[in-house]
C-alpha cells in the first residue's frame, strides 16, 4: 500500500511582523517612561498600605533626610516662575541660561546665596561640591518658607490650581525634624499634605 505522503513544511515562521510589533511597543514604553531624577540624598521611605497615587502636576516635593531639607517643584514652567519670584525677593537676577538650566534640576538643597554657583555645575560636580547643605529652615533665615510660598504663587498664576505639598521623609528621621517642616507649612495654612510611601506588598 502506498503511504499518503505528508508534505514537509518548513517550521521557520516569518518573524518580521512580530519583530515590528515588539519594537513598536518597546519604543512606546521607552518614550512613556520618565527618566528618574536622582535623589540628592539617600532616603528610605517607609511603607504603607495606602494606594493613592501621587499627582504629577502642581505639586511640591520636600525631601527630608539627615536633618536636611530638599525642595522640588514639579514642572519646568513652575520651576522657572518660582526662580524668578525668589530672585526678585532676594535681589538676585538670573540669566535666561540659568533659568533654563534650573528648570531641569530636580530636587535641590542649597541656600539661595550659592544657588547661582550650583546651577552652573553639572550633575556630577553638584553632588561632589558639598554645596547641598539643605535649604535653611532656621527661624531667622527661613528660605524654605519662601520657596514654598513662591512656588504656590507660581502654580496659582500659571495653572490656577492650588499647589499640593508632599513630604518624602527618611524612615529613621526624628519626628522633631519633620515637625519643623510641617510647622512651616502650617504657618502658610497648608494643613493638608501627602506623605510619600512605598506600597506594602501582599496586604
Amino acid at each position, binding site marked *: 500500500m502506498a503511504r499518503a505522503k505528508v508534505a514537509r513544511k518548513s517550521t*521557520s515562521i*516569518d*518573524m*518580521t*511582523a*512580530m*519583530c515590528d510589533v*515588539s*519594537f513598536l*511597543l*518597546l519604543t512606546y*514604553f*521607552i518614550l*512613556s*517612561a520618565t527618566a*528618574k531624577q536622582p535623589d540628592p540624598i539617600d532616603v528610605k*521611605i*517607609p511603607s*504603607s*498600605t*495606602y*494606594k*493613592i*497615587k*501621587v499627582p504629577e502636576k502642581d505639586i511640591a516635593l520636600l525631601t*527630608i533626610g539627615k536633618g536636611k531639607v530638599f525642595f522640588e517643584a514639579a514642572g519646568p514652567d513652575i520651576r522657572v516662575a518660582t526662580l524668578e519670584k525668589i530672585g526678585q525677593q532676594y535681589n538676585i537676577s538670573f540669566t535666561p541660561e540659568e533659568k533654563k538650566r534650573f528648570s531641569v534640576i530636580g530636587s535641590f538643597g542649597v541656600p539661595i546665596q550659592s544657588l547661582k554657583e550650583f546651577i552652573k555645575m553639572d550633575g556630577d560636580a553638584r553632588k561632589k561640591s558639598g554645596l547641598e547643605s539643605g535649604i535653611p529652615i532656621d527661624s531667622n533665615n527661613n528660605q524654605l518658607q519662601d520657596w514654598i510660598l513662591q512656588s504656590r504663587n507660581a502654580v496659582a498664576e500659571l495653572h490656577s490650581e492650588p499647589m499640593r505639598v*508632599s513630604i*518624602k*521623609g*527618611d*524612615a*529613621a*528621621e*526624628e*519626628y*522633631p*525634624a*519633620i*515637625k519643623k517642616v*510641617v510647622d512651616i507649612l*502650617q*504657618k502658610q*495654612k497648608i*494643613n*493638608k*499634605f*501627602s*506623605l*510619600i*510611601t*512605598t*506600597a*506594602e506588598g501582599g*496586604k
Partner: protein
Amino acid sequence: MAELDTSSGGGKKGGGKVRTKKSSTKVDLTAMVDLAFLLITFFMLTTTLSKPTAMDIAKPDKDEKNDQRLELRASQTMTILLGKNNKVAWYMGEAGSVAPEIVNFSQIRQAILDNKKSVKEKTGKDIVMVIKPTSGSNYKNFVDIMDELNITGIKTAPAIDDVNILDSETTFMKQGGIL
C-alpha cells in the same frame, strides 16, 4: 517583507551570462524578537512599579482665632502616644485617669480594634483617635501608626497633635522609658 528580490529581472536578454549566486536575504529575526520582548518587559515593570503612593494627612488648623474647635468626648477618644524605640502608649478617655498601656507596633492593631468595638457598643458612635507623636519618635513610627488606622478602618479623621502633650503623659512616658 524583509526580503529583497534579488533575482535579476533581465534574465531574458542573453543566455550564457555568468550568474551571480543567489543567496537568501532572509535574516533570522528570532533573536531580535527575544531581545525586544525582554526590553519591553523591563520597561513595563519599571514604569508601573516605581510609582510611589501617597498618604494624605490633615492637621488641625493652628490659627488661635479659629473658634470652631470641637470638644472631644472622653468616652469615645483613644489617644496614642508615639515614643522612642518603636513603642507606643495608648489610653482611653482622659489623660491621667487611666494608666496608659505601652505596647509594640505589632500589638497596637489589636488594641485599636478592641477599643473601636467597645466604643461602638457602649456609645453607638465611632471612635475618635488622637495621635501624639513625641520628640522620641521617628518618621516611620508616624507613618506606621497612620497606616494602622487605615488598616483598622477608622473612618473619622484622626487628630494629630504634637503640641499639646500633657504633663501627665510626659511623666508616664518617662517612667515607661519611652521618652
